[in-house]
């Protein structure tokens, strides 16, 4: 029996009133049992014994992104499209690498490009100047691309069978690592003007990539950058990662990159 009103369970109806006190006194709400209709201003409400329901969700927080990524991946696989997620810190030369690649190989293979930046369409304009179809995604305050953004971009781009889709992620070595976009391969670009210990400073990103493109190697004579140390740091995080040394400006090493793309 309910100790409050004598009913058989949780269906009791209580009446309560708010004591006519100043606001600070209302923090500890005064509830009293009163006969129904006893006073003006009295209200009735449902049980005051909270009924708790536990929902066992057991759901991956990134489930929605991962599901959308698999849809993208299925689309790419069905059309035999090589989709590459290009990640790096800002200024490593991702766009320059793409410009050079498209200029050199545009006649041999159809390319499509998805550009991700917080603001502006400057990268898309650079790519479009070379003639490749491109969609710019502006993430605003976001720091990475997510699978649904790429989904919308590829719906616009309509990449053709046997083509290559480059997804240039937002320049950021932290956040993009967590978000599968449905790519076939993830390529990290690092330039020799950065520190060689970046792989251990940003291990998540290096761990999830299959290839590390070391860019701007034409500048090595002017820098104290130890390429071997970079590779050793990267292998500590990801022993299976491959390396290609290039200069998108001078063209050095680009043939090795093209061979990796299967071209």
């Amino acid at each position, binding site marked *: 029996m309910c100790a409050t009103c004598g009913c058989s369970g949780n269906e009791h109806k209580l009446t*309560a*009133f*708010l004591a*006519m*006190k*100043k606001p600070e006194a209302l923090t500890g*709400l005064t509830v009293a049992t009163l006969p129904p209709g006893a006073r003006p*201003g*009295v*209200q009735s*409400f*449902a*049980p*005051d014994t*909270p*009924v*708790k*329901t*536990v*929902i*066992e*969700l*057991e*759901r*991956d*927080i*990134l*489930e*929605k*992104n991962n599901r959308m990524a698999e849809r993208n991946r299925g689309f790419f696989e069905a059309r035999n499209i090589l989709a590459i997620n290009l990640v790096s810190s800002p200024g490593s030369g991702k766009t320059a690498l793409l410009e050079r690649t498209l200029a050199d190989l545009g006649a041999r293979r159809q390319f499509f490009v998805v550009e991700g930046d917080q603001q502006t369409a400057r990268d898309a304009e650079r790519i479009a100047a070379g003639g490749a179809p491109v969609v710019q995604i502006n993430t605003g*305050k*976001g*720091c*990475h691309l*997510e699978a649904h953004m790429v989904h919308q971009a590829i719906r616009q781009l309509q990449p053709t069978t046997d083509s290559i889709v480059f997804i240039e992620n937002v320049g950021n070595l*932290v*956040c993009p*690592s*967590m*978000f599968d976009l449905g790519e076939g391969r993830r390529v990290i670009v690092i330039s020799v003007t950065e520190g060689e210990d970046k*792989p*251990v400073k940003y*291990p*998540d990103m290096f*761990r999830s990539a299959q290839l590390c493109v070391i860019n701007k190697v034409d500048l090595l004579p002017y820098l104290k950058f130890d390429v071997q140390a970079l590779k050793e*740091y990267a*292998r*500590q*995080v990801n*022993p*299976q990662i491959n390396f290609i040394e290039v200069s998108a400006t001078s063209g050095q090493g680009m043939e090795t990159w093209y061979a990796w793309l299967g071209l």
Partner: protein
Amino acid sequence: MHELSIIQSILEATTNAVQQNGKPGTVETIEIEIGELAGIEWSTLEFLWPAAVGDTLLADATLQVRWVPGKAVCSDCSSSFDVRRLYDPCPGCGSHLLQITQGEELRIKSLTLVDKPTVAKAPLRWN
């Protein structure tokens, strides 16, 4: 700042679950599981949480986090060990060829809904 995306994903999944549950109620507790190698910075998530859930169904919810320590198996010598950082070598043979077996979790475990009475606002009169 991917922690904001993580909170938004939590919100979306929670909203769907509460709607599917079909009963009115407020979320009293949300229990999540985060692996120590999952790439979540707790201080960032904690800082963003109040603002991100401000006027949502999680506004008054207590966030309970279960941290899952990192564990790995060495692909070279098959020993199992705890991993705190992704570049930690195998303590047995020094290899970096590891398979992470635990510590990358990012899961919503459960929600506790409470069917709290919402006290109807009586017209207040001041003495």
